[in-house]
Structure formats: structure tokens, C-alpha cells
């Protein structure tokens, strides 16, 4: 009950605060238009935001360790989050600043119009790409290498069960988590990338073909895609993976290859839809009609007239599809049917390391390990989404 009481008091306080804020604003600024036309909801929003900020500051400066000697994990995590956010913002800012200084006139111009979120996204994507490509060089140990000590805590502090050799600790059978994280970039990102490319190749070419030719081919493909899309993709993927796992056993082909194919096919239906829609929009343009009436062949129409105009939406879609594929693979691996051990993979790692989370209250650093792998997935998808968001915004803005 006290919780509810507290909540009500805060709410009333905020409401009064909002009223005072607006009234005060009007008085101080001599009834400037901003305060004069402000709705009560808006004033409430401002006051609420301010209250949130004050609370965050207060919480941030709470002591790290409670009087009882137990670490105040909530504060620790909160500080990490805030610090991480600030560091990310600074990194993005510096990156954008550099981008504006260095490079050709074209890239400079691109960076000038770039919001900070997009700069952050690009930076993260570059880092991931570098880590993925050079995983073998960067990682201190091999991904399947079983080292002496199992269950070493993260943080590298021997007093807390850590080991400086393994900064992020080791897992249940003694593999270095940091190395596995780095190799995970190679495996998870690489496989997702290949899958997306494959999906685009299949879906894109069929989609454009359907849009250009129309007629029975279009009907056939579109109905087929309708059927495939009527089944939720993760469910469908799981079902097919069950089948594939049997085949993989019999044929001796790694399950991962089946997974790539299955997800590529499922995802190509979405790409097909988009490619067809974009294609149809372009096909009705008069310049396509002019080319058709000129007697141009199909190849010229698709590659010279349609494709260059479809690039922008397709590129944005590539980003979104990549995220989706990436998350699907991660989910499959998390459920235990995706990328198979001993390959390091973030989804699998989260599942394996999940029990560590229960130590959070005593050893904040230990609880982080499973979240690191999950966070690595989230960070990349967030980054890609930021960039795609910006691209879509830009292309829609150009039209106006």
C-alpha cells in the first residue's frame, strides 16, 4: 500500500509542479508565445522529464557499496550504463568529426548531414566487421580451446574468483569467454551476413522478374510466397530445422549449412515482396514504358532501368533483413538448434552462461558475462537499425 501512496504523492507533486512551471514561465518571460500556448500535458512532460533527471543524478551518486559491505549492484549497473552511454556518444561524436575532416568531398558532405545515432551505428558496424575479419588475430585463445580452469569469474580479480589471464572468465568447461565472444562475431555475424546475401539473391531476382514480366509467373510466385509467409518465420524455421537435423545426420552435412539455406529461403519471401513492390512502382514509370516501346530486352529493363532506381530501398531493406536474420539465428542457437558447438556463437553462449546471472547481487561483474553476449547481439542490431533509420529518413526527405 505504501508503494501506491508514494506513487500517488509523486504524481500529485508532479501535477502541481507542472502547473507552477507553466504559470512561472508565463510570468518570468512576460507571456512569451512558448509558455502562453503551452498545453498542460506539455508542461507536465517537461516537469516529469526534469524529475526523472534529478532522480537519475541522485541515484548515480549513491555509494557503490552498501554499509553492510555488500556491493550495491543496482548502482554499479546504473553507473556502467550511464558511462557506457556517454562513452558511446563521445566516440560517435569524434568519429563524425573525423569523418567531416578526412576523406573526399562526397563523404565529408555525407558526414555533415549525419545524426549522431547514425554515426554511432556506422562506427559500431566497422568495429564489428574488423573484429569478425581478424578474430583469429585478436582473440587470446582458440574458440574451442579448453583451458585449465572452469567457471572462472569475470573481472580478473583473484579475490573474487577471477584470473587476470581470463579477463572475462571462463565457462563451465573452461573455455575463455573473451575469445569466444570475439570468435562469435566471426561465426554469428558472418553466417548471418551470408544468409542475408543469399536471401537477397533469391528474393530480389525473383521479385524483379515478377514485377517486370507479371502475368502467370508473378501470380505463381506471389501465391507461393503468400503461403510461406502465412507461417510465422521462427516457428517455420524451427520446424524445418527439425527435419534438417535428421538429414544432416544421415548425409553428414553440417547442420549450419541447412540453417543458412532454411533461413535464407524463409527470408527471401520478405525480400521478394519488397523487390516486387518496388519493382512494380518503377515499372509503371513512363521511362520504363519508353524503354519497352523502344523494343529493349528484359535484361536491359531489369539491370539498366529498374535496378539502379531500386537500390536505395533495397539497401535499407538489406540492413533490416540482416538484423532479422541475425536475431533469428541467435534465437535458434539460444533454443539449441542453431549454430552447433564447438563453434562459438553468441546465442548459445547466452544459454550456457545464463545461470551466472543469479550472482548479480553479490558480484555484479559475474552477472555480466551472459549479458555481454546478448548485449553484443543487441548492439549490432541497434547500430544497423540506427543507420537504416537514417537512410530511410534521408531518402524520404529528398523526395519532398
Amino acid at each position, binding site marked *: 500500500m505504501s508503494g501506491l501512496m508514494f506513487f500517488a504523492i509523486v504524481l500529485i507533486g508532479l501535477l502541481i509542479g507542472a502547473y507552477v512551471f507553466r504559470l512561472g514561465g508565463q510570468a518570468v518571460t512576460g507571456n512569451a508565445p512558448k509558455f*502562453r500556448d503551452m498545453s498542460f500535458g506539455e508542461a507536465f512532460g517537461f516537469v516529469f522529464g526534469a524529475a526523472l533527471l534529478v532522480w537519475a543524478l541522485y541515484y548515480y551518486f549513491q555509494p557503490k557499496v552498501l554499509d553492510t559491505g555488500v556491493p550495491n549492484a543496482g548502482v554499479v549497473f546504473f553507473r556502467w550504463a550511464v558511462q557506457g552511454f556517454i562513452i558511446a556518444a563521445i566516440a560517435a561524436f569524434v568519429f563524425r568529426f573525423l569523418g567531416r575532416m578526412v576523406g573526399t568531398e562526397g563523404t565529408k558532405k555525407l558526414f555533415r548531414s549525419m545524426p549522431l545515432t547514425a554515426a554511432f551505428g556506422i562506427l559500431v558496424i566497422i568495429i564489428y566487421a574488423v573484429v569478425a575479419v581478424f578474430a583469429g588475430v585478436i582473440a587470446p585463445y582458440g574458440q574451442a580451446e579448453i583451458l585449465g580452469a572452469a567457471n572462472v569469474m569475470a573481472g580478473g580479480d583473484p579475490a573474487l574468483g577471477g584470473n587476470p589471464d581470463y579477463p572475462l572468465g571462463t565457462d563451465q568447461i573452461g573455455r575463455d569467454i573473451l575469445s569466444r565472444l570475439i570468435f562469435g562475431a566471426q561465426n554469428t555475424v558472418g553466417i548471418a551476413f551470408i544468409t542475408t546475401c543469399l536471401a537477397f539473391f533469391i528474393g530480389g531476382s525473383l521479385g524483379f522478374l515478377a514485377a517486370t514480366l507479371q502475368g502467370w509467373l508473378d501470380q505463381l510466385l506471389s501465391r507461393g510466397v503468400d503461403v510461406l509467409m502465412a507461417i510465422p518465420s521462427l516457428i517455420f524455421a524451427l520446424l524445418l530445422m527439425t527435419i534438417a537435423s535428421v538429414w544432416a545426420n544421415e548425409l553428414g552435412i553440417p547442420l549450419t549449412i541447412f540453417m543458412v539455406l532454411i533461413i535464407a529461403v524463409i527470408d527471401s519471401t520478405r525480400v521478394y515482396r519488397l523487390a516486387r513492390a518496388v519493382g512494380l512502382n518503377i515499372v509503371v514509370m513512363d*521511362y520504363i514504358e*519508353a524503354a519497352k516501346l*523502344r*523494343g*529493349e530486352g528484359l535484361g536491359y529493363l531489369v539491370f539498366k532501368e529498374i535496378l539502379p532506381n531500386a537500390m536505395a530501398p533495397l539497401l535499407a531493406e538489406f540492413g533490416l533483413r540482416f538484423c532479422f536474420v541475425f536475431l533469428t539465428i541467435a534465437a535458434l542457437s539460444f533454443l539449441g538448434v542453431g549454430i552447433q558447438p564447438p563453434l562459438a556463437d553468441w546465442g548459445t553462449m547466452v544459454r550456457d552462461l545464463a545461470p551466472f546471472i543469479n550472482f548479480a547481487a553479490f558480484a555484479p561483474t559475474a552477472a555480466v558475462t551472459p549479458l555481454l553476449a546478448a548485449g553484443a547481439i543487441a548492439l549490432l542490431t541497434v547500430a544497423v537499425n540506427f543507420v537504416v533509420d537514417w537512410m530511410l529518413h534521408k531518402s524520404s526527405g529528398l523526395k519532398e
Partner: protein
Amino acid sequence: MSRLLTIKGLKIEGRSDETWNPIINGVDLELNKGEVLGLIGESGAGKSTIGLASMGYTRDGVRISDGTVEFDGIDLVKASAATKRSLLGKRIAYVAQSAAASFNPAHKLIDQHTEGPTQHNVAGRSESVQDGIELYRKLRLPNPDEIGFRYPHQVSGGQLQRAMTAMAMSCRPDLIIFDEPTTALDVTTQIEVLAAIREIVEEFDTAAIYITHDLAVVAQMADKIKVLLRGDEVEEADTRTMLSAPKEDYTKSLWAVREFQRPQQPSPPADATPVVSVRNITAAYGTTDVLHDVSFDIHAGRTVAVVGESGSGKSTTARCITGLLPPRMGEIAFDGKVLPADYRKRTKDQLRQAQMIYQMADTALNPRKTIGEIIGRPVQFYGGLTGAKRRERVNELLDQIELEPSQYYNRLPSELSGGQKQRVGIARALAADPKFIICDEVTSALDQLVAEGILRLLADLQDNLGLSYMFITHDLATVKSIADEVVVMKDGKVVEQGPKTEMFTPPHHAYTDLLLSSVPEMDPDWLSDLLKERGVDNIGDAAVDKM
């Protein structure tokens, strides 16, 4: 006369690419009670922006940076949102260009009509329903008692436009802003909307700002006219003075557009084979016939204008000729030889002979290709020229369309103005070295001055190259200036055809007559005279329905 609206030094800026660029650079405007001001200018002149600003309103991404807009002593620029709300709809009302988009699709017309009076406490609901019906009757809407109880999509465009005028009148405002209210309408519909607006504005002695790009329309509606060019005022004078004695060069040039007349080409010998001969075409989309037994000939070196309102089948005829829509019956002959109905079955040479220029240059040119590539492709495709020879031919074509080759060869269409794009479209057609070109409303998306240039260019090319044109248009002024022969279409049928000289002298077919008489003229008395002559019930849709 007392002053109603005073705008002083109005400056408006628009936001693009993160910076504020000026749209209006300091315009003054004065309007007395009961006076109608015509705001005229080409696209991008800032007419609508001023119209909205005189209501103290700006669209998103636009702001008033300086100046005052004083309505009856209240500065709308500085007024609070609440003050503005109490004026808008009640004392200042707005009639938008597209009535179909400006009526809320979810409510009945009458509910939207009564919203103003009830919200501003001018009248009760039942009272304003009665008033609405009365207004509908005054505006001569069919079934005034019932039409208000329909949803917007159930009412035609011309009727919606009048219903919107009625809605603007619902609180008997002192000032109405008309923002191109008839631009989207056909000429025969336009005339009855014009008549209705003028009548009701006079009856209630309402002041109005009438925004349009059509000089002849504004001549009927306005007491005085202000000419705008790129956010600046060019000149202002009362209507008669402005029409008879414009001062500024720009205004004069606008007037001069209407005077371009291409001399009539000599008639072909009676036994000449026509370049294109359309023989008894009937065509259908799906199962409904949209063309019925259409026939006409186009002779070498001549221009045939195909005229009609939207939905009359002009463009469908063009699609039949090009082979995009194979006709259900009838045939197309080229130089006396029958062409295959489907374009895919025609030979490369047959395709080359007939070219097309499109209405929207924006969609007719591939935005990802340079001008050189766009024109060079048919040169290479048909003429087989490559490398330097191709370049040479493209330069020659660019010269023909009066664009400097070295400057435009590597540009993208988005870097060109509307008129320049249309010229590139012409060059692409010429590159095939055709005998016959279909021009589909090539000037209707362009400002008058630019359109004039395109027409002159087409006429010159015809003289030099002996081309035949099929000129599709809804604009009779264009027909007058360029056509040798005219084909009038309505509902997929040819109503009348013949040489231009015959077509523009009476007696006409009744529909041709209606079409011709509905085109506004520059004479300010034209509408009054016409109404006197024909009677209010014999114009527009009412007259069409009688046929």
C-alpha cells in the same frame, strides 16, 4: 470602405537541408471589406504560402520570420493560439485546392459543415443544418436537401468544391481564402464552380483572396490583381487596368503567351496516304469498353490535336496507337500498312517510326541516368552509333532542343528545370529519327511561359524535320495555337473532327460548343456575359447531363 486585412513586410522562410531559406521576401497586401483580390503567379511564386499566412497559419517547416498580418486590428503573427482559433473558421475561412482530400472521409458533409458554427457558438446544430441546406441550394448543388448527408467520397469533385465553399460560408466570415479551388477540375465543371463562388461572395459581401495561376479565371473573380514572382510582388492594379495595360515586363510576358499562333499548314492532297491512320478502334480495359469506334488520320507534317476532358479516352487512344493496349476491334495503319496490334510484335523499325513524349517529365526520364545516356541510348539502339559518333549525334540533338551540350551532357534529370526536362524528353524522341510523335499533355504540367517555349520548339522541329504530331491535350488555348486539325472526344467516342479553322467557327456540335464556351477568356465580363447568354442552368455538368 473600411480596411479588413493589412499585411506589411511579410517575410516567410522554409526549412530544407537544415537551413532556413526565404520563400517570401517582404510582401505588402491590403484588402478592404467586400473586396476580392486575385493573387497570381507561377508555381513557386509563394501564392499559397501568403494565402495561409494571411490566416496566421504556416505549414510544418515554414515560419513567418518578419512582418505583420493585421486582421481587423489584430496582429495574427503575434496573436496567441487561442485568439487565432477564435478567428479561424468564424471570421476567416479557407477553401482548399483539393476538396476531395480536404473533407474528412469519416464524416458526412453536413456534420463537417455544422462543426464551425457549433464550435464557435454562432448557431446551434439544427439551425446550421438548415443554413447548410440553404447554402447548398444557393450554390446550386443537386438535391440540396440530401447531399449533405452523404460522405465525401460519394460526391463528385465539382460538387465537393462547392460544398467546401458552403462550409467556408457557414459562419458568414469576413474573409475567405480560395486556394486554387478550380485547378483540379475540368473546364466544364470549373465554370459552374466559378459562377457559384462569385455569386455567393457577392451576395454576402465577403472579402476574398483568390489564388490561382490562371489569368482568365482571376479576371472573372477579382476586383484587383497582384502578380507574384518567386516571393516578390511584381505589380498590383485593379483588374481592368491590369488586363489592358500591364506595366512590368514580366506581367506583359504572361499576357503575351496567349498570342502564340502557328500558321495553319496547307491541307494535304486528297489522295495522300496518311502517316498514321486510326481505323474504327474499340478498346477495353478488362471487360468494359473505354473506346468506341474511334477513327482519324494524321498526315505528314501536320498536327492533330485530340481534345477532351478527363476520362474521354484521349490517352487510351495513344496507348492503342503505340501498341501498349491492343484494341479489341479495328486497326492502326502506318504509311498505309497495318501495324501489329501488340508492340512486342512490331519490328524495331516500326517502333522507331512512332515516338512518344510524356506529360510528366519527372517520371519519363530515368532519374539515375545522365542526359547523355538518356538521349544516347536510342541513338545507339536504333542508329547503331557508338563512341564519338554517338556523342556527336547527342550533341546535335541537344543543340536542336536548345540546351548547351557541354553543359548538360553529364547532368542528371533532377538537376534540370521542368521545361528543360521536357526538352530532353523531346530529344529522346528525336533521337530515334521518327516520322510521328505522340505528345501526351506535354505542356500541362508546365508554367505558361515555359509551355510556350516548348510549343515553339515543337513547331520549329516540325518545320525542319517534317514531323507529324498527335497532340493530346485538354487545354483549348494550346489547341488554338498549334493544331492543324482537331478531334474532340467524349466518353471514348469522337464527337467531332475537322480542320482547326472549321472547328473554331460556329456552328459546332453541341458538346464542342460547350467545351469552347467554357474556357475562360481574359475579358473580365466574360463570365457575366456567358451567364446572361446561357442562363445559370445551362453551364457545366448540368449542361453536359442534358446532352
